[in-house]
């Protein structure tokens, strides 16, 4: 395992030029890209369509060869077979064999990692439960919806418990529920010491989960750095309070005027649409409404993020350490495991009392730490970075 802070992926002067049949230069997909992605971080490759994100990932994975420059991955060349046993990859399209069912798919990819049969079967069960495809495990992948294919694609990427997880447009085709679960999983993996490289043009996804981002446009790096640093408006201060009446507002204006400051904006904070959507779905699930699709959303994240959950810990441990004995076989681990998952107690309480258990009760799982502090983010900054090439050219190379 790489020590925290060690370089996992390093590119120097990475350039990819595509040529036509007559070897004439057709397009420069990536140009002189320097990146140093370190362990335990979630790194986002951000950019509009055709900015070179996927090409960069494919070069990191050895699927494309650089025209110029070099790549090392865990200090080795991308074609090194041993290095690949530490990587999990979810491509932009799932690229799975349509004639295999979910279980066969995971079994086949598990075999390529030389996993013993028992361990493989165990992991397959856990992963299918995690991505919510247990009930359709024997249906052919070709019959899955796009979102379900993304889920099984994620499961195959995790079958080897990778130290480096590379996700190309991971949330494309996923419903908000799946997107949320994906993001929670990414954070969970990062907290457990994994390195995640994420490519996306969906700004909210990157903003929610990434520690650092690199913004590409036209194959060139336009900006790079920590998300907080890039988005912070240091010339403004935001205070959130209880709702204020007009008198109080006047007082505030007076105080600010005394300090020679101006009140820029006063408004009621809005909830995110994602949060609203998730609340509605959660409510529907509590009422046990039926659905024909995948049945995840929340449970897996809850499962993986709760440190005190022995069940979750068991699964994570078995995914993390191949050589470790199976925790379920240890009597202590069995004793420590709760009789029922917390979510079932919650449902039981609801059934008995006839109303939903209030959030914050002892049975409610703690809030999921999907990001650091909630921030009001001016997306215009990012859009500006993407759109204005000349202004930001001075930031090139800022990654290092």
């Amino acid at each position: 395992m790489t020590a925290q802070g060690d370089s996992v992926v390093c590119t120097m002067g990475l350039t990819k030029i595509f040529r036509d049949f007559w070897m004439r230069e057709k397009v420069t997909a990536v140009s002189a890209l320097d990146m140093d992605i370190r362990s335990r971080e979630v790194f986002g490759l951000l950019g509009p369509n055709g900015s070179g994100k996927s090409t960069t990932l494919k070069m990191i994975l050895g699927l494309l060869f650089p025209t110029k420059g070099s790549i090392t991955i865990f200090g080795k060349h991308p074609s090194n077979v041993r290095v690949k046993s530490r990587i999990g990859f979810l491509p932009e399209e799932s690229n799975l064999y349509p004639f295999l069912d979910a279980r066969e798919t995971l079994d086949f990819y598990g075999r390529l990692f030389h996993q013993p049969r028992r361990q493989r079967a165990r992991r397959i069960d856990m992963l299918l439960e995690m991505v919510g495809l247990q009930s359709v495990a024997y249906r052919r992948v070709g019959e899955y919806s796009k979102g379900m294919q993304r889920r099984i694609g994620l499961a195959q990427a995790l079958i080897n418990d990778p130290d480096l997880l590379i996700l190309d447009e991971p949330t494309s085709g996923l419903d908000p529920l799946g997107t949320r679960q994906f993001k929670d999983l990414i954070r969970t993996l990062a907290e457990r010491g994994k390195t995640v490289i994420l490519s996306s043009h969906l700004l909210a996804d990157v903003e929610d989960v990434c520690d650092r981002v690199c913004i590409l446009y036209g194959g060139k790096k336009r900006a790079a750095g920590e998300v907080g640093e890039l988005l912070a408006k240091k010339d403004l201060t935001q205070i959130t309070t209880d709702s204020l009446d007009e008198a109080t507002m006047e007082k505030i204006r007076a105080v600010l005027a005394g300090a020679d400051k101006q009140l820029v904006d006063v408004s009621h904070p809005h909830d995110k649409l994602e949060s609203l959507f998730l609340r509605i779905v959660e409510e529907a699930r509590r009422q046990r409404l039926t659905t024909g699709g995948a049945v995840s959303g929340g449970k897996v994240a809850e499962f993986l993020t709760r440190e005190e959950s022995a069940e979750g810990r068991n699964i994570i441990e078995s995914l993390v350490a191949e050589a470790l004995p199976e925790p379920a076989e240890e009597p202590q681990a069995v004793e420590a495991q709760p009789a029922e998952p917390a979510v079932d107690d919650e449902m039981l309480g609801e059934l008995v009392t006839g109303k939903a258990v209030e959030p914050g009760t002892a049975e409610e799982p703690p809030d999921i730490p999907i990001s650091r502090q909630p921030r009001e983010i001016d997306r215009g900054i990012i859009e500006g970075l993407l759109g204005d090439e000349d202004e930001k050219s001075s930031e090139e190379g800022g990654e290092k």
Partner: protein
Amino acid sequence: MNSIWAVARHTLSQCLRMKIAVAFLLLLAAGLAILPLVMTGDGTLAGKIRTALSYGVGITGVLLSILTVLVTVAVVSGDIQQKHIQLLAVKPLARWQYLLGRWLGVVLLNAALLGVAAVTIYLIAQHLRGSDPASAVDHRTIETEIFTARAEVKPQPPNIGKLVRKRIEKLKVDGRFDDALQTYAGEVDRKGKTPQERLYAELLKQELSRIETAGPMGAIGWRFKDLDLAGRETKAYGTVKISRADVGQFRISVPTPLAGKLVYRGPVRIDDISGQVISLGRDWFDVRFGPDVAKRQHLLDLRKGSTVEVTVEPTIQFRYKAQPTVKLPAGKKQLHRVLYFGPPMGKPIYIVAGSGPTGTPTTMTVPAAGAVVDGKLQVVYRNIPAPPTGPSSMVFMPPSVRISSADVSVLYRVGGFEANYIRSVLLVFCQLVFLAALGVFFGSFLSFPVATMACMVLLGGGLIFNWLSEAVGWYGQGGEFDFSGFVGNIVLTIIKVLMPNLSETSPADKLVDGIYISWASIGWASAWAVGARATLYLGLGCWIFHKRELAHVQV
């Protein structure tokens, strides 16, 4: 190895899901179902069995060859086209392991399908073997020329060079050599041969024609060596059906295959006592013992129902194809001859008079005992007129007959049909293993239609290689087509290097002729066609696959 096996398993599973096995079995069943409609042969049961075997093995080979090419190309190029490879290539699976896994999977599929087809064809052939033959000759043909494995020995080549030198000496002695040379000096030769070389070639041709032609009452002789007949007896148990011990004659019931190996008037041993076959049936024969031997108490004790051990002495089969040098009159299709079998420089032991058809191979079976000494044999063909049909009928002089040395051979049984059949199936398997490597190679860098076309062109080239050789040889014989010959030879050389000669390694002809397919030939086929060429193709495929990019630009 685990990775290769995982990919091979996956390939097998993929092929089964693609219904390839079902399609093949349906096509094979359809092919075999129409077999009875097409296998008329020459009207004999032997002809039917030959057709069934050659047709069955042929259709299996063709179907599996096409299937192998299509499947290997489809799975490899399909993985690239549909981007499945992008998931596989990022797993701890070397690219060469992926290609070998794909190849192994198709080879295993072929092994399974070929096994099913081979068993089916064998059962059909055995079913036909159990039917009633049209005649005793038909029965003999089935047992001694089809359901057997015979070694084929070609005659020793005549020393024509020596004969030509003698002719030249004679021309010189007669003072006609310079005149003969002058005949060729005046003509321009486009191949640049000297008059001496052209005279020598002409004399060679004349001498070869002379020694291969028998004029009226004339003869042609061949010598054979290295006939290994030691321990080639066939043994089985029989039951005495009729005992006439008083005159030394018995009718013995034996299994059908053994009865087919007996020769009329040939030697046979009953409980190790030598006798002579005097009459033959499908599952019985009559044996007569000489007056001295017949008095032995053991024979006198034989009664109806007694079980005896029957030993059939080894026999040799002389096969030739005679062609009259002139066109025969209408209605006359038989050439009359006497064949003499004996050791070289010795007296003939067996003299067989009769007639044979023109232009088709004729087989004559005689006991080997006495005729073959120290593995050597001499056979003489004498061209005789047709015997008179009546006291007043006229005897016409026969036409000259030419028998090419290439059309002459001596055959003798060296093994059973079953083992030979298994070896022939292995030969087909060798071809399929090679084709799988070919498909993997082309599929690794070409799209499905282009790779399939390339494979099919080479496959066709390998199948018609002999025909191509002849065609190119014809074009290359000087004259105005020299350039075509030059180009043709280049193409031929390329095909020869890239493809094994599938028409030569095809086992169907040998199998239906009951010719022994040696382990050496399988070793050669596996070592050269599979071992060398398949390794070359797989190696090249792996190298190209290692060097190529597995994703496309999407900007």
